[in-house]
């Protein structure tokens, strides 16, 4: 079995897997978009329901990516897995990107359906807090130069921030909100018509696979960035040693 904790083995596996994963993602997007545009209009929302096929997968990913980052943070703090902090760092900008998509598409869906681009209700506000958390984590990684210290600080902030996840999930049950309650993953089964549900699930799978591809690519970049930093320091140290030898030789002559 390949030891994925070894960065070189990870690079070799991603080099082989990425083209196939990217191809599968593109195929799923083609099928998902095709079936979404052929899907019938909703009986209340009409064609505006087409926004659901991008808004819901982005919303699902915005929380899922934070779960991935929470697991990676545990990997950093508890198990000290060599790739855990790279995975956490690589996921933060992607989380911010998909949460941005979720907020903007939700806003563009909200205006025609609710009459407002934005309302300060629990679901929207908690997702906005999640977006700010992602941006804060990206900023934290950039502001601490020592990667080890940055990883520990980001891991702690991620673990503190994960309290927001159940708030996002249950905000529609706990408080009065304009946002509709869960209609796909619920105890009594989905309440969406199958003609709308299948394109939605296909798009959700396409978005998830897209995240997997982008995350693997971003982790690969992180490994290369660390290799580059190590080699640069090594070259600088060798340069210093050479300079010292040269200076010692010069003074002894």
């Amino acid at each position, binding site marked *: 079995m390949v030891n994925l904790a070894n960065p070189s083995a990870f690079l070799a596996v991603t080099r082989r897997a990425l083209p196939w994963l990217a191809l599968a993602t593109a195929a799923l997007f083609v099928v998902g978009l095709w079936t979404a545009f052929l899907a019938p209009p909703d009986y209340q929302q*009409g*064609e*505006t329901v*087409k*926004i659901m096929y*991008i*808004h819901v997968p*982005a919303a699902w990913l915005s929380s899922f990516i934070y779960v991935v980052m929470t697991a990676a943070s545990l990997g950093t703090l508890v198990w000290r897995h060599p790739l855990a902090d790279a995975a956490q760092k690589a996921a933060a*900008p*992607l989380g911010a*990107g998909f949460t*941005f*998509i979720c907020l*903007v*598409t939700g806003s*563009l*869906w909200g*205006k*025609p359906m609710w009459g407002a681009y934005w309302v300060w209700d629990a679901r929207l506000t908690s997702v906005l807090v999640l977006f700010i958390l992602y941006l804060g984590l990206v900023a934290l990684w950039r502001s601490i130069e020592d990667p080890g210290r940055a990883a520990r600080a980001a891991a702690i902030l991620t673990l503190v921030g994960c309290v927001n996840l159940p708030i996002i999930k249950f905000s529609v049950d706990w408080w009065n909100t304009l946002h509709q309650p869960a209609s796909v993953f619920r105890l009594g089964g989905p309440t969406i018509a199958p003609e709308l549900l299948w394109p939605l699930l296909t798009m959700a799978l396409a978005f998830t696979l*897209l995240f997997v591809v*982008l995350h693997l*690519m*971003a982790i*690969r*970049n992180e490994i*290369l*960035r660390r*290799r*580059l930093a190590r*080699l*640069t320091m090594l*070259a600088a140290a*060798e340069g210093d040693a050479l300079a010292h030898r040269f200076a010692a030789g010069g003074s002894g002559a």
Partner: protein
Amino acid sequence: MSDIPHFGFIVAAYLVTAIAILAMIGAIVLDYRRLSRALSRLDAARNRDDGQ
């Protein structure tokens, strides 16, 4: 197509999504190219130094 109610909102939502996804892909690909180039330059410089 434009006689569909709220057509502009639907198109705007898909456009924003496409732009955001392309921006994420572009940023990661450009970062990879920059890092690969820098590593190749460093390797070439080290090989040159070793050869001397």
